[in-house]
């Protein structure tokens, strides 16, 4: 391959577990790095995404900043992949979706037993939480999904190598998992 594929990654409302799983491909990172180079990613600390071939997003959308980052990725990435339960279903953060956001904040910051002089954080630098947590595909078009909490390193490796080889990525039994 003459030119390396540019790959951007980010974690939105996620726990970085899917990034840890990406690192779990272990020594296969070396052959992978012959094929790709990283753009914006927690691994490079590049703050904004340039034009990329593949975008890799873990975590769902729980606040306004998540939406901006997701739009930036969609605008710059030819192929956008949602990785992990949170990106695909909302996951753990979405467990608040059947509750009222106001009462969640009140309970956590104001009325929780043991709290004194609590107040709901209102620093202008904090991104505003959304009323509901959304999976990525409800906000932008997502090209591929790798389920799992997190997907195994093997699943990520299989998916990426299929994709880079120009094949339709397939996981199959043992690699496709929702937990």
């Amino acid at each position: 391959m003459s030119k390396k594929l540019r790959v951007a990654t980010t974690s939105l409302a996620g726990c970085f577990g899917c990034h840890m799983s990406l690192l779990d491909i272990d020594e296969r990172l070396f052959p992978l790095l012959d094929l790709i180079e990283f753009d914006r990613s927690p691994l490079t600390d590049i703050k904004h995404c340039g034009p990329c071939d593949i975008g890799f997003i873990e975590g769902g959308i729980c606040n306004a900043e998540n939406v901006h980052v997701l739009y930036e990725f969609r605008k710059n990435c030819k192929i956008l992949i949602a990785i992990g339960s949170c990106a695909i279903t909302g996951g753990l953060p979405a467990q608040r979706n059947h509750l009222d956001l106001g009462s969640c904040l009140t309970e956590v910051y104001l009325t929780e037993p043991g709290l004194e002089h609590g107040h709901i954080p209102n620093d202008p630098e904090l991104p505003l939480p959304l009323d509901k947590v959304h999976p990525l595909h409800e906000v932008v078009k997502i090209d591929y999904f790798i389920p799992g909490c997190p997907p195994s390193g093997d699943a990520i490796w299989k998916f990426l190598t299929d994709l880079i080889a120009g094949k339709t990525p397939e996981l199959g039994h043992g690699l496709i998992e929702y937990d």
Partner: protein
Amino acid sequence: MSDTFQLDGAAVPFEAGQTVMQAALAAGHYIPHLCYHPEFKPHGSCKLCTVKVNGRTAASCTMPAEAGLNVESDIEEMNSLRRTLVQMLFAEGNHFCPSCEKSGNCMLQALGYDLEVRTAGFRHMYPDRPLDASHPDILLDFNRCILCELCVRASSEVDGKNVFGLSGRGITKQLIVNAASGLLKDTDIALKDKAMQVCPVGVILPKRVGFSIPIGKRRYDQRPISAQALDDAPRQADASGSCDVCEGTP
């Protein structure tokens, strides 16, 4: 006994009174299914087992077998419809597999794996369905209910208790408990009841035994559901009503 129908090009023998599903499973052919259980009368509600019979779609669990039928099941057209049905079930309830005790032993999840369902695709509905933890030994998590009525059927037909029922219509349809309080603690359900064994998903759970089987050793970690449904098929002939291959026991 000499009569046969064609299933994906193979001749399948059947006995009078058998459905397409029963004959197929008995002959060692898998047709994906969710609300069908070999020990109970077919329900025909999940539609996962939909096949093409002489060019028209029909639920194979309720379709009577007839000589000469041409049944197509494992074709992309049917599998694509099945994929969509599984996606709709995932979007309609709250199926958060990472925290579910039934994960790895769940038929809905296993069908998702088998059909390579990687996303629910639809907008998730995130319904509000509070748990019923009132019973000392049994937990009900309605978030995962797919309304297959297997517990309803088991409780009334086998246990003779009528603990469960479905109430409401359309999107408001829900599983309810037959007690004035609506709580499971006010019923006579017991851990050994058939209704405790048949839930294909993670609604009816015995307390204090969750996550006892490690990841990798659970039922559908080992082999895909398509390779295991045939193991269950002989249950048909088991008149004792015992079910040693139901959920949770690998």
